[in-house]
């Protein structure tokens, strides 16, 4: 079960390709379009952040990818290709139950948001950890399963004597660690994390994220990290996709998205987090509230809240336009014809694009995703701004 035997897709190559994925809740004219035409690529060894507010469809997208969607959720279009090995691509949407059974957990596992609800309260941690081993590795002996369960707990920093504990005997952080250990039990290629730290305190959240990043560097799995907290993604993700009202509105490398957003919604989200440094100044956030998906606004779903709104936005839905530097944004301002406001045309600082992707495993090429390819072209334009990139006033 060593990594070298299991790893088939080279690090940095596409591992999961989602194209044109559409998910509805309900049928017919009253159906709510929860995910519309989503295109995503998760590269091997990459941390892809999926950010969006509640109701933006980010969890629905993840459940559709893993085929965990329950009625009335319905996948109505698109493709999800999983690159099991360089010469074997599995269409997850067409896969039947036995194939899914094998793939789930051993190749793609999920960490749910609420560990209290995801763990069975009447079973001990040990029986929940060994259950998955029993199901997927029937040849494993009982002693072997026990040893592996203890090893998994140790991996997430919990001593083996907690194996016999029940979920209610663990703190919230420990429960979430157990969830992570369980997701990693079969050394999957992809771990989908649905708001794994949202319910935790900020210090615990930081500890778990650090452990997670260390595990990822060691085990080299790819992560689809779903969260509403964009500021968190800046620190852990290689690339970020932002969702709004069921559509992907921007895709870019993490640093590029942070320093130089191209979609007004990304910009608004970024200015919704008060900074920890620098002078205190009034921030405006985003006016209005997220749309009701039962009655989405015509045209661009963000236009009622957008301060750069144009006539065209009210009628036409902008597609996800490819931009320079390998990124893309769904905004009519970026189609080349419109005058782009300065806030949305900040050049990408060279320092960020040139830096190797922070999460790349040892020896991997930078898994920079879509943003890393045109570093050279971005560098001259950005040379003026590197000096202004804020340095963190780290605490003493």
């Amino acid at each position, binding site marked *: 079960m060593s990594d070298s035997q299991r790893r088939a897709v080279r690090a940095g190559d596409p591992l999961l390709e989602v194209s044109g994925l559409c998910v509805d809740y309900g049928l017919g004219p009253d159906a709510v379009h929860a995910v519309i035409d989503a295109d995503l690529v998760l590269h091997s060894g990459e941390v892809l952040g999926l950010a969006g507010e509640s109701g933006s469809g980010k969890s629905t997208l993840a459940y559709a990818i893993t085929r965990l969607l329950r009625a009335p959720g319905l996948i109505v279009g698109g493709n999800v290709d999983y690159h099991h090995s360089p010469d074997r691509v599995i269409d997850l949407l067409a896969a039947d139950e036995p194939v899914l059974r094998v793939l789930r957990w051993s190749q793609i596992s999920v960490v749910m948001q609420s560990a209290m609800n995801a763990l069975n309260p009447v079973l001990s941690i040990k029986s929940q950890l060994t259950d998955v081993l029993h199901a997927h590795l029937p040849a494993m002996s009982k002693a072997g399963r026990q040893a592996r369960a203890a090893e998994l707990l140790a991996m997430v920093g*919990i001593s083996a004597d907690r194996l016999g504990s029940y979920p209610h005997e663990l703190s919230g952080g420990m429960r979430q660690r157990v969830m992570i250990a369980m997701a990693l039990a079969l050394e999957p290629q992809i771990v989908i994390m649905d708001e794994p730290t949202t319910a935790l305190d*900020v210090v615990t959240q930081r500890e778990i994220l650090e452990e997670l990043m*260390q595990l990822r560097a060691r085990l080299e799995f790819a992560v689809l990290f779903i969260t509403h*907290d964009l500021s968190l993604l800046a620190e852990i993700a290689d690339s970020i996709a932002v969702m709004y009202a069921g559509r992907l509105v921007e895709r870019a490398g993490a640093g590029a998205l942070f320093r130089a957003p191209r979609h007004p919604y990304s910009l608004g989200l970024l200015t919704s987090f008060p900074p*920890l440094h620098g002078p205190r100044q009034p921030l405006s956030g985003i006016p209005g509230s997220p749309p009701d998906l039962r009655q989405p606004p015509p045209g661009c779903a963000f236009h009622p809240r957008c301060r750069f709104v144009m006539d065209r936005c009210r009628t036409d839905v902008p597609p996800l336009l490819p931009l320079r530097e390998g990124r893309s944004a769904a905004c009519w301002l970026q189609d080349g014809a419109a005058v782009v406001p300065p806030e949305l045309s900040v050049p990408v600082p060279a320092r960020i694009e040139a830096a190797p992707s922070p999460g790349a495993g040892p020896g991997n090429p930078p898994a920079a995703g879509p943003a890393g390819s045109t570093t050279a072209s971005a560098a001259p334009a950005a040379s003026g701004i590197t000096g202004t990139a804020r340095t963190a006033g780290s605490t003493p």
Partner: protein
Amino acid sequence: MTQLGVTAEAPATGTPVLEARNLTKHFPVHGPVSVGRAVLGARRELRGQRVPGRDRGGDVVHAVEDISLALPAAQVTALVGESGSGKSTLARVLARLLRPTSGELLVDGHQVPAGGSGRRHYARQVQMVLQDPFASLNPVHEVRYHLARPLQVHGLRPAGVSMDDAIAGLLERVALTPADQFISKYPHELSGGQRQRVAIARALAVQPRVLLADEPVSMLDVSIRLGILNLLRDLSDAERLALLYITHDIASARYLADTIAVMYAGQIVETGPAQSVTDQPAHPYTQLLLSAAPDPDRPAQPAAAGAAAPALAGGRGAPPSLVAPPPGCRFHPRCPHAMTICAEAAPPGFETAADHMSACWLHASDLSTAQAAPLSPLRPEETGRQTTPTTRKEESGA
């Protein structure tokens, strides 16, 4: 009008609207052994006898310990801490929803009278906004009912103004306009941000002078949080509200508040001007909180370096059990700078800058060598974990 009346003249500057002195709140532990004792203690308490925790015989949770806090008019005070640090308990004591074990509450420098009418007067001065606007509004009633009730209960509808006009005025104060669109809505027809605005309007209905906001934005979507925070700021400025903003998010406290008080394990460990506390944190716990907060401006790090660079400023582990808090400074088991004295005596507040207090022995100038000797880091009997101790495996590297 009594001295508590809402129309009483504003007191001389310097007197905070609401002041808490040495507030302590202990909760009896209903363990299998101490249930009987706790019931006895609770009975005694019901009869109005003060029962200090130790005398009750059973264990107690030291939820709030000896906290003094002043809320001046037109100022925003932020109370920052992790869950379980006692910040919500403190808010409930300040709102008189809980009776403090000891300590006193002063409104405009005067003692708060006990009993029903005192309670009603107090409610007109001090109002609370709760965290979850999905739970704090009654789903079977319209917005009209929620805002009419406080006006009816306190008899506050101005003469010659219809109830609907009074309610519309309230809705306009929280920027829910046009008001007639909202007045007949049920809570489920409103978005989270709008619900929280209704909850704020309900608190404002009695024209309070103190507003206790317990995590008012943590249940809301990111993009609408700032709108609520800005509203609270404007209300504090325009109506001279003394605002207590309770949060776990130190960045939003920095944004909104004039003063920040950091709470750990039932005690306030640091207070000071907001920017001073976040830019020059003087207490190791505040430093830990700041280092754990998501910060896109932090230089790219830890994963690339593998296990080499922990971003957290020390302080691994969990908050202590509040049933048997560690002796001395309650943070010392997690503190990277712990000294011998930290395990022996609780630190008093030291002034580290203008108006900036930190309860940490590191700021004492006259410690003996023995007192300042580093505390040996591994003393498991003192770590006082909430559950049985966990051995945390050190990552051996990527």
